[in-house]
């Protein structure tokens, strides 16, 4: 049992990482990784949304009519996303970050990871493992987001969390700031990930 729980938590972060292995949630990974601060808030938001949506859907799993299950899931996810967005907007410190992330918080609804984990895991498992699975997938997603944002903020603005790191003589690379570079970087991360983990390699 404990072994299984451990796997539920570790698998999405390493072997079954939603971005590098399942290649889900790519769009937002390209959009919100210009700065570390935004990426961090986005990662936390997605983690909370996937975790709690999975928990709620798992609690309801035996009552949801099969024909409308996707719609019910969507309603639950949408509720969680709106809650997160409203709370971010209400906090004095988080307001500026919410403004910066603008539509991308709302677009967590369309993040494939959230619905994907509910369909694949929460509907067939008990609430606690579902919650952990959701949180772990959010963390796996967030980890990649932060790695990408680290390189993009460092090379694109010469800063980290808004603090100047590279010398002022460094000329920020505009390509790094544009979404295509995030895709290139993501490709490199997937490459490294697969090179290190033989199980992920295909013939």
């Amino acid at each position, binding site marked *: 049992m404990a072994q299984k729980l451990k796997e539920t938590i570790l698998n999405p972060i390493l072997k079954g990482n939603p971005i590098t292995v399942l290649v889900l949630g790519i769009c937002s990974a390209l959009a919100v990784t210009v700065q570390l601060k935004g990426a961090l808030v986005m990662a936390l938001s997605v983690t909370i949304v996937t975790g709690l949506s999975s928990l709620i859907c798992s609690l309801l799993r035996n009552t949801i009519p099969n024909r409308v299950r996707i719609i*019910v899931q969507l309603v639950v996810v949408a509720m969680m996303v709106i809650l997160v967005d409203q709370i971010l*907007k209400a906090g004095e410190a988080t307001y500026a970050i919410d403004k910066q992330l603008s539509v991308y918080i709302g677009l967590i609804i369309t993040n494939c990871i959230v619905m994907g984990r509910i369909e694949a895991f929460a509907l067939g498992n008990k609430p606690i493992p579902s919650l952990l699975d959701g949180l772990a997938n959010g963390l796996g997603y967030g980890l990649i987001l932060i790695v990408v944002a680290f390189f993009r903020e460092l090379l694109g603005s010469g800063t980290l969390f808004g603090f100047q790191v590279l010398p002022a003589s460094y000329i920020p690379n505009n390509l790094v700031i544009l979404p295509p570079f995030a895709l290139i970087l993501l490709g490199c991360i997937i490459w490294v990930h697969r090179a290190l983990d033989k199980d992920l390699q295909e013939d």
Partner: protein
Amino acid sequence: MNTNSNVYTVIYTTIVVVIVSAVLAFVAMKLGPAQDANAKAETLRQMMSAAGVKPTEELYATNNADILQLYADNIEEAYTIGLNGEKNGDLSIAQDKIELISKLKPQHKAILAGEGATLPVYIFKGGVTVIPIYGAGLWGPIWGYVALNPDCYTIAGAYFDHESETPGLGAKIKDEPWFREKFVGKTIEWGEERAFKLDKNAEATGAPNTVDAITGATMTSKGLNEALNIWFKAYEKHFGVGAFFHALEEHAIEETNVNAEEE
């Protein structure tokens, strides 16, 4: 129980939707005041940044309560005008009835429709007047505040913001202090077809009402140019006349001086 029957499905979805909407309505009601306070403080920060009350970074490091106080300490008069340039409303300072950024969109529509606009004018102590601008960038709305010197002709400062312009390109209108600093000392040529020109190589013409467009952000620059001109046009009757008389007055003073010297 048959969870696949039609009756069950309809009742189930109804209950789920009712519960979810109740939760959201409750949360929106509870958080509403805090969100409004944030939105108001944000509006004031942008306004006071344009007016030069304090440096932008300092304003963003100040908490909401102090921002309200700072505004109350520095504002002299605030009112709204119609498209005919005449006062048609009062933005009482005591009640902090400032026009929020979110209200600029309906105003923009009213300007384009040519009726029903109540355009805010904020006069700060020392005579600096702040007016908003609003328009469409490349991906979403852009807006900002322009501060005019007491002569209502030269620009004292500006602040621009956007919803979703490209980071590193269009987003420079907000992120790069050098861009807004370029507006300081420039003029608004009230009465001209285009009161202000934000264009490629515009500064090369040497005209005092020009700022160069941002390289790589053509559409955002164009949108900002439109926004500035549409809103300046809307304010023209209010400031244009005043500026005209001001120019006359200066002219008269100069003439008096000349006469005095001659004598």
